[in-house]
């Protein structure tokens, strides 16, 4: 499946870029991410727990960043193996362009699933992938900007003081 979308982020392209390459930010933003290690240069190792329709599985896999043009473009590709549940893999072409309010982040995402995930979940995989992408970029936007007053906080354990800052700013402060 394929999808394309864009999102306005109230931060400079440099700030957005830094966040994109930060494993802690990625860990916080990837829905269901349990572990994330590595670096932008060497690639990341990730463990993600997700439920796709009737199939719940722990996916272990790698994420690599290629075609990096600071701070304009990066291609993120990843593949996760879910054991008996099958596999998921995909890529996102992410482009950052300066805008009046900060940065326009646009992305083309392509996702594939295989094995039992495809057998059981093909009918719902498009909706699932869209939800995953939406959640990721929603969280990513919050991480970069800090939550707006209306925003739902994805990290209920955080102290109220911390909530005022974006996750990125917390991490770098």
């Amino acid at each position, binding site marked *: 499946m394929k999808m394309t979308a864009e999102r306005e982020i109230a931060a400079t392209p440099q700030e957005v870029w830094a966040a994109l390459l930060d494993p802690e930010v990625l860990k916080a933003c990837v829905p269901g991410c349990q572990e994330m290690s590595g670096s932008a240069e060497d690639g990341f190792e990730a463990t993600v727990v997700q439920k796709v329709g009737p199939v719940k599985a722990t996916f272990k896999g790698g994420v690599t960043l290629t075609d990096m043009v600071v701070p304009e473009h990066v291609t993120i590709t990843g593949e996760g193996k879910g054991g*008996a549940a*099958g596999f998921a893999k995909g890529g996102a072409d992410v482009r950052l362009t300066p805008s009046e309010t900060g940065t326009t982040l646009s992305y083309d995402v392509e996702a*594939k699933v*295989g094995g*039992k995930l495809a*057998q*059981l979940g*093909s*009918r719902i995989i498009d909706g699932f992938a869209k939800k995953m992408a939406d959640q990721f970029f929603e969280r990513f936007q919050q991480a970069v900007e800090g939550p707006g007053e209306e925003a739902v906080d994805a990290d209920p354990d955080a102290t109220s003081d911390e909530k005022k800052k974006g996750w990125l700013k917390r991490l770098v402060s």
Partner: protein
Amino acid sequence: MPKDSGIGASPKRREDVRFLTGKGQYTDDINIHGQAYAHFLRSEVAHGTINGIDTSAAASMPGVVQILTAKDFEGVGGVPCGWQVTDRHGEAMQEPKHPVLAEGKVRHVGDPIAMVIADTLEQARDAAEAIDVDITELEPVMDMKAAIKDGATKVHDDLISNLCYDWGFVEENREAVDEAIKSAAHVTTLELVNNRLVANPMEPRVAVGDYAPGTDDYTLYTTSQNPHVIRLLMGAFVLGIPEHKLRVVAPDVGGGFGAKIYHYAEEAACTFAAKQCGRPVKWTSSRSEAFISDAHGRDHVTKIELALDADHKFTAIRTDTYANMGAYLSTFAPSIPTWLHGTLMAGNYTTPLIYVNVKAVFTNTTPVDAYRGAGRPEATFQLERVIDKAARELGVDPADLRRKNFIKPDQFPYATPVAVEYDTGDYDATLDKGMEMIDAAGFEARAAESKAKGKLRGLGIAHFIEACGIAPSNLVGQLGARAGLYESATVRVNATGSISVMTGSHSHGQGHETSYPQVVAEMLGIDESMIDIVHGDTSKTPMGMGTYGSRSIAVGGSAMVRATEKIINKAKKIAAHLLEASEADIELKDGAFSVAGTDKSVAWGDVTLAAYVPHNYPLEDIEPGLEETAFYDPSNFTYPAGAYICEVEVDPETGKVDVLKFVAADDFGNVINPMIVYGQVHGGVAQGIGQALLENCAYDENGQLLSGSYMDYTMPRADDLPMFDVDHSCVTPCTHNPLGVKGCGEAGAIGTPPAIVNGVIDALHRAGHTHVSHIDMPLTPARVWAAMNG
């Protein structure tokens, strides 16, 4: 008055008592002391190179007994193909190796890579997750036409291409057919897809392998339609075990529909592993595994042209088909689109010139083989659809166009231009009967009622012929079969007169335990309850070929008749001795032997007792005992035929199709048990409606199976089906078998799909959607709506 016993009666199915009370003994009910459980790690990608398989972590996990991969099967043969097709240039088909476990490459989602054997199934599954398989994905070969273009990625690197064979039939007619089409008054052309199906028997496949080191005997318990065929293929071609050291048992089997004919890798793997690990090894397929490892059915892409003269007589048929073989050749796969398909392209009609071209293609999908009907539904569908289209184009009644071209009763035996000779039939009779049953005269009034409700009603007509009981062996040998196609029966009369009949055919839902005794009881004049049928065990039954292709009663029943005739002949000799009369004067009636024209008689039980307690017995002339075996090799196929007619209603708002009425008027020749025949037709029609409206096996472009569960693979349910009106009162008995029977198992699945599609097209045309000449199956609401609004 209907009979209450013997041929033509409808005793209730005796096997149903155990099936319906949970007392059946299916393969999964068989548990052997000390057995271990197998789980197969299967490929998740459609096509890839195996760089390495690391089983070290898995091997040390709790309960793991052994892990087998391709290297453990070095020295073992591949899974064999049972039919070699010769192409139109006289060359043998391309036949790739089919290793038991994937060797070097994986070629479809579900291709087994490793076999994990553990103390429990859960442990085997857990360990399989710990196996690290390093695979480099390759481009999957999915589209048949693209697959045989130059430079296409190959499924099998050692083959010349993905083309298994390019078959022409009858090749000598090719140019004459081309000429006839060029010079025809009218040519109707239709392109269509015969959708890929998954058989989905209620019971998934199971295999239990056992090995006795003390005697070097192997036993395989398996969900098979033909245990002797499995013994032959697995023993001779895969594992190198001679027949006397290999017993194959197929006990109660819960449905087959073709998918349990074939020898599967899992059977060989479990048998092989039982010796390797010193324990019985059991594998039970999950439903998810069944979707990716049971052979699929159909999957043809076809263009058919029908030429007619000015008088609307059919003058020629040319048909080009791409037939999907999947990734490997399943046991009988090559024969399905060729000899079981091309030979039926004459249908019920006098078309003098026919040319059939079939290109069989390897793709990165699960292997495809026979599914209920097997080639004959594909032939019937294209023929009955193109005739319907021709009738619409010519503005003539589709029933009349069929009648005009039917082979007439006085033309039998009728040699078709596609190499078969129909022995008998009366197609006008079945079509007339079907039209009467559907009340065709009242159709317009019902169509008006539907219209008043905002619905579109259509009348769908199809007439089919099939060839059952594929035979004779010497002919099928010439056509490429690597097996004989006779059937066997042993009639063992016991001392007290009860009888065990051992048949080489196999019941997996057909009701053999009920209908076979009706035949033997009728011949001997004794009660059916004195007769039991034994099947499904190579150690108990004579070598037989099993059950598929609607062959049991026509071939297996005939063998039983021949064996029973031998019993009668010998019993008459014994009776003559006991009655001190001439053998020629002995008559058998109602279970007693009498001397013609006298009141002297001796009961069945007295004769059978004398055979085993031969105190007063002609020992100098005949041996003691009363047991006879016969092998029956038919001289021809049988040719059931019938009219399948339906009324459908299309909802123009949604495109949903409802089947309101469905009638089947079949000529099955003589019928042994009408109730069982009704049931066979009902089941076949349900599967035919499933194919026409609901079922579709779908892959994505990456070779992932999208319809891998019942959430997405739509099986027909009771509320999708109308009440069926089924008749088999039109009877032209088969002329060449002793029972005059033809076979009924596949008829419903053959005749139904074109009837349904013809009905929907009729409904759309009546409503003015005349631009819709065809919709590919399944006719889902989305497809019908799109066609109407396209």
